[in-house]
Structure formats: C-alpha cells, structure tokens
C-alpha cells in the first residue's frame, strides 16, 4: 500500500431519517497520523457521520474506504472492517456484566480468537496504557465516569485499530473527570494514532488537532487548522458558535 493512501476516505455521504436529512453530502479524507476534530451544533449530523463511517448506520448514499478498501461494498464483511476502527461512545457503553479487564479482553477472545491468557495479558497492558491497571477487577458500575471512559478507550485500543473514532467522549462526564480522559486522548494523539474526534473541547482541539471540520445542516460548513476555525472563522454559523463557546470557556477559566 502506498504511503499516500488515506487511512479513511468518505465520499458524498447522505443519510436521512424520515424527512430529516442528517447528512447531506459529506466528503473528506484523513491521512495516517492525523487528528481531526469535528464540531457543530447538536443535530448537525456529527454522530451520524461517525456511525456511517463504520457502518453501524448504513448511509443512504455515498462510499467509504478504509486503507484503500471500500467498506461500503455490500460484499465486504463489515465485521472484519469494524475491528480496525476503534469506537468510543459518549455514554461509554461498557459491558455491564464484565470486569474492566473482561470488557477489554472479550472481543480479543470472541472476535480475534485469542487464547484466554493472551487476551487477559493484553487487556491488562492496555488498561495500564490508560492508567487503570489497579481497577482491572472492578465492574463498570463500580467505576467513575472518567474511569469508565478510559476502560472504553482501552477496549478499543486492544483491537489494534488503524483509526479511532471518539463520539463526544467527555460530554457525559462531570467537569472534574474530563481532564483524565482528555489526557489519555492527548497522549494517544501525540503517538499519532489516527483519530476523528467529535468534541467541543476547544483546548483539546487547539493542542492536538490538525484540522477542525465544522458541521451544520448535514454538511461540512467550514474546515481548516484549529486556530483559524476557532479564532477567525468565515461562515456566520461557525462565528456564532465559537463566540458562544469562547464565552463559556472564559467563564469556566475564571
């Protein structure tokens, strides 16, 4: 595979639910090692975009390639392709009946058919990567929100994905827990793990994103380097959005 092949490429994605058009022609690509942040008001199609990219939701129209291989080809085995995409959910979606370690190792055992002891070993090392080796034996309901989300990140990382999707990973967290999750995400970003991050954490976007894609009305309204989009956007909707976010941000810092 040539080094120019983007890790992921989306072309003209459309998705409607009934009469409401959620995605209305979204195209972009992401190179190896890039971090893209997706922002936009709620209902602008950010989560739907992520779900269409790993076919948790099938787009009505449009195509997606992962490492040059078209995954929207209906003859392809989606389950194989999804293993290469790590997905981190807003509400964590940890498996409630399994310990943190089992949450990470179950897909290794059942999907990758790894031996149990190998899967356990790998799970523990992934938990260590997100600083959670000491809660490996605990169940999700015994963990804080920040710990849950880090287990979820470890669970995704264990599959050795070529790209990570984060769907508002800190939106369900108490303010004092956001930092520990962002720190892990920053660390992974600095390791150049290709990622698409739906978030409104401006600080995170500024420090690690290569590009911000701002979504609205089902399309990408504006895109560019974080500083440009946050401080000097052209589109009126984007201007308004960041004006409000910046006000909020300053108020919190005070």
């Amino acid at each position: 595979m040539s080094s120019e092949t983007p890790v992921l490429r989306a072309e003209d994605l459309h998705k409607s639910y009934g009469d409401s058009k959620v995605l209305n022609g979204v195209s972009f690509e992401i190179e190896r090692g890039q971090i893209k942040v997706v922002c936009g008001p709620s209902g602008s199609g950010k989560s739907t975009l992520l779900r269409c990219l790993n076919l948790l939701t099938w787009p009505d129209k449009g195509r997606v390639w992962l490492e040059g291989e078209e995954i929207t080809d209906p003859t392809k085995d989606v389950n194989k392709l999804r293993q290469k995409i790590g997905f981190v959910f807003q509400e964590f979606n940890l498996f409630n009946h399994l310990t943190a370690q089992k949450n990470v190792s179950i897909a290794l055992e059942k999907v990758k058919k790894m031996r149990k002891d190998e899967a356990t070993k790998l799970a523990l090392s992934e938990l260590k990567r997100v600083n959670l080796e000491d809660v490996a034996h605990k169940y999700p309901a015994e963990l804080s929100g920040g710990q849950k989300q880090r287990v979820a990140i470890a669970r995704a990382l264990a599959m050795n994905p070529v790209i990570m999707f984060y769907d508002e990973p800190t939106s369900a967290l108490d303010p004092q827990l956001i930092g520990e999750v962002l720190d892990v995400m920053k660390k992974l970003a600095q390791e150049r793990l290709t990622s698409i991050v739906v978030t409104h954490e401006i600080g995170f976007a500024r420090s690690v994103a290569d590009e911000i894609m701002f979504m609205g009305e089902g399309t990408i309204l504006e895109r560019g380097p974080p500083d440009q989009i946050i401080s000097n956007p052209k589109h009126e909707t984007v201007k308004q959005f960041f004006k409000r976010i910046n006000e909020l941000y300053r108020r919190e810092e005070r």
Partner: protein
Amino acid sequence: MTTVWEFIPYIMSGITWTLGLVGGGLAIGFAIGLPISIGQTYGGKEMKSLLDTYVWFFRSLPLLVLLFLFYWGIFPASGYKLDSLAASIIVLGLRSGAYQSQIFRGAIASVGDAQLVAARSLGMRKLSGVQHIILPQALRISLPGWSNEYAIMIKDSAITFALGVLEILTRTRYVVMATHEPLLPYFFAGGLFIVLTYAGTKAVSVVYEKTKIPGLIGRM
C-alpha cells in the same frame, strides 16, 4: 381420621410427579421461550409475526383446553401415542415457552441497544453479541420474573389432574374419594403447594443474589 393420615405417604409421593411436570415444563419452556424472545427482538418482520402468533395462541387458550386439545386431539391425530404425563409436560412446556418468551423479551429490551452497538463496534457478529453481551445480562434481569413463572407453573401443574396424572392433587382426590374426608387431605395438599412454591422462589432469589453484578443497584 387415622385412615386419612395413613394416606399421607401416598399424597407425598405425588411431589415427584408435580416436580417432574414443573421441571419438564419449565425446561421445555426455556428452550422454546429464549429463542422466541431473541427472534422477536432481532428477527425479521415475518419471523416476528410467526412468533407473535405462537405466543398469542398459547396465551389465549385456558390450560385445560390446551391439555384436552393436545392429549385427545392433536397428539393422537398426528400419530403420537403419549401417556398423560408426557403429554402434560409437553403442553405445560409449550405454554410456558410463550410466557417465558415475554419475560426474556422484556429483559433483553431493558439491557438496551447500546450494549449491542458497542459489541458490534468491536467487530462482533450480531448473534455473538447477543450470546456474550446481551443474554448474560438479560438472563440475570429475568430471574425475578422467571421465579414468578415457576410459582405459577407449580399451581398450574395441578390442572393435569384432569388427565389423571398422578401428581399431588390427583392423589389427594383419590384419598378424599376413598375416605369421604375432604378437609384434611385438601389442607395437606395446599400445604405442599405452599412449601414447594416457597422453596422454589427462595432458591431462585438465592441464585439472583449470587449472580448480581457488583455495583449495579436498582437496575433489576
């Protein structure tokens, strides 16, 4: 009076039959009900309406009608010569399957779709996700409802006296007919049903406590 008490071992040996009816019925009901609940939740439109029809049929007819229909009608007509015990177990099982399916269906729904979406996002196939992620949680959640099904089944099993199955009630009736003394035998039979119901539901609630997911409170 003494004659009545002499029959107590005879009535007591009906416990084995009652437990056979209940155990067999619940086991068949589980084997039928669980796949039905999975089909109803995840299956296609045609499969759903087929399964709905099954559930609707067995929940609509009185147990007595089902017993007569199958024992005197459907089994002989389709060439099966089943004795009354086997026929009763099968009918109790077919019927319990309809009820159990609704217990499991509710439990699966309360586990929530997000769990399966997470499993799918890791590349798990749908059925594998149902097996490893959904069912272990749903079966725990369904235990209280399932213990209710046991309590109902214990009592329903007595209706098989109509086919002469030698369970507790049938034997008690024979004793009453022989002694012309209804009060004590029926009291005794009633006591047996109370003990069996209590012991069974207690056992299920012990299992429920033992298999509780640590930290998860109030969800089940």
